[in-house]
């Protein structure tokens, strides 16, 4: 399955996403960050379990909840943090922010402010891989809400018709913003939608890294082998609101407590990996300390970094002639 070294790497990523997001929440509450944020806490196993199979040049497209996908795809934390602070040193020079954070050189095609818009971008990246015969694949991450958008259906159909190396990773966290999934569609397993496109589909426990890792491995392996796209539904849950400051109220305390107590993806991973003899408490504690120090350093650097100059508003609209 995975080696001890890989297990520590997985934990390091899960923990980085968790801490990054929790520290961001605190920064927003303290009034230190502009704009608004959609955080990934609770869904970490999905990004990490999928991206563990990806190479640097493989592409991913993301959602408004995109920090976890960036981190799992290897985007630089310092550049990400500076971006969220709106600084010139940000990975997008302070022009994108949370909802458009991207690093195309690392195959990260951007968070996206439009629900469903990342899917055709990933189809396009898969088309590039196919035409240029790079052996690469493209992953679209999106939520349950996106499956009711036209872009979802058009993308699945196109990828299936053209048998492209695309993987559609559906993170079903049970809510499209404040609307429960069962109110938005009659389906329970949204992976059923794949039937309409004769696409291979899989359902994974999105709170369990090992389950996501196994099923994503199958999906990505099929794509690399020329067997076409897969719709992989990961059942997951977000522990925080739709955005920081979400008044909540649309889900019960008991429901939230159940997920957090019994299915926290970090705890699930640690329990399973410990039982498999892959990780030990001291090694994990060492990673915890390293991760916190790294994120704190990124925050300190971002807070001290210069803001863009007002004239920068005019640059980067068109490529230089």
């Amino acid at each position: 399955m995975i080696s001890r070294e890989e297990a520590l790497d997985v934990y390091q990523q899960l923990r980085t996403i968790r801490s990054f997001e929790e520290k961001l929440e605190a920064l927003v509450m303290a009034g230190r960050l502009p704009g608004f944020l959609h955080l990934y806490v609770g869904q970490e196993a999905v990004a990490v379990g999928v991206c563990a199979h990806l190479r640097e040049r493989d592409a991913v497209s993301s959602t408004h909840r995109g920090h976890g996908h960036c981190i799992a795809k290897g985007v630089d934390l310092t550049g990400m943090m500076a971006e969220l602070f709106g600084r010139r040193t940000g990975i997008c020079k302070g022009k994108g922010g949370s909802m458009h954070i991207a690093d195309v050189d690392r195959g990260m095609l951007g968070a996206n402010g439009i629900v469903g818009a990342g899917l055709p971008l990933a189809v396009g990246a898969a088309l590039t891989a196919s035409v240029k015969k790079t052996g690469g694949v493209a992953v679209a991450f999106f939520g349950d809400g996106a499956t009711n958008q036209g872009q979802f259906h058009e993308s699945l159909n196109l990828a299936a018709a053209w048998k492209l190396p695309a993987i559609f990773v559906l993170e079903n966290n049970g809510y499209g913003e404040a609307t429960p999934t069962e109110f938005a569609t009659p389906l329970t397993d949204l992976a059923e939608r794949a039937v309409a496109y004769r696409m291979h589909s899989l359902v994974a426990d999105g709170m369990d890294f090992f389950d996501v890792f196994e099923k994503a491995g199958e999906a990505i392996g099929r794509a690399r082998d020329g067997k076409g796209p897969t719709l992989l539904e990961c059942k997951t849950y977000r522990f925080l609101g739709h955005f920081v400051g979400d008044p909540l109220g649309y889900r019960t305390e008991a429901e939230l407590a159940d997920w957090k107590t019994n299915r926290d993806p970090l705890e699930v991973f640690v329990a399973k990996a410990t039982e498999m003899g892959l990780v030990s408490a001291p090694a994990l504690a060492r990673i915890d300390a390293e991760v916190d120090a790294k994120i704190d350093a990124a925050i300190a650097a971002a807070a001290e970094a210069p803001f863009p100059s007002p004239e920068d508003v005019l640059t980067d609209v068109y490529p230089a002639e």
Partner: protein
Amino acid sequence: MPRELSFTGAINEALHIAMRSDADVIVLGEDVAGGGGRKDQGIEDAWGGPFGATRGLIGAFGPERVRDTPISEMGFLGAAVGAAATGLRPVAELMFIDFLGVALDPLLNQAAKMRYMFGGKVRVPLTVRTNVGAGNCTASQHSQALYGFTAAIPGLKTVIPSTPADAKGLLLASIRDDAPVVFCETKSLMNLKGDVPEGDYEIPLGLAAVVREGGDVTLVGLGRTVHTSLEAAAKLAAEGIEAEVVDLRSLYPLDEATVLESLRRTGRVVVVDEATPHCGIASEIASLCVDRGFDFLDAPVKKVTAPHTPVPFSPVLEEAYLPTADGVVEAVLEQLGWNR
């Protein structure tokens, strides 16, 4: 050596050259081959696009690079954006610009903004070829001239040639541009013939052309209305009035200097556009002339455009809808009267 080609033929030639000179160029859209994938049945490109502009490409470059898409504009335009951002140079065909209604997000929110949102760290070398305009009785949903809308979106370029020679050179420049370009092909000009140079040449985006010189009034046209303006200029010449005709060719970037320079020479401007009059290119040119050419103006700027209505079907109504040479002549005479 120039030889005579139709507008469609010039576009077809440009596409062949672009695909031959760069293996990253792909062509995708509805029926760009037509019957693609049926080579075993002796069928290869039954259509070559609804106007035949892409005929022969699939035979020359194969089905990997020349792709018939499902009727799924948002899906394949979005895929074209993703392909452009990851190393291909796609030429996507949006059969009629009216279909932007079901395909807008990939252009408006993705292609146009990616470079800016990502701090300049991506190129989106996408060309969207699309058919615009009225004159063929294609009614309200296949006849609009929506280029003013795409020209208003920062991050996009919008181009509209008026002759076969310009169509070839502007299309080659559009495909090789690293920004997303909306390339508008005017329906009523597709069969227009003209001399087209052989070989590979580009016409830079953002350069207008003075297609007729004259000292009394400047007529600014684009696409179809360049011809309307030339027809009007001939009628005015018969009355002893010499009109200069400026073909914008590119709506963004816009060649403001050429328009203002012509205004400086003539003192009068009539903008002729087959699009509707509100918030469009004609208003933009009028604004430019008032804002930066006020001292040169000897008469109010006139707009001769379609009315603020959908495009009608009946030939009689459509003729009433489209700007005419007589309408331009009338506007010019009104300007001169104002001056008298």
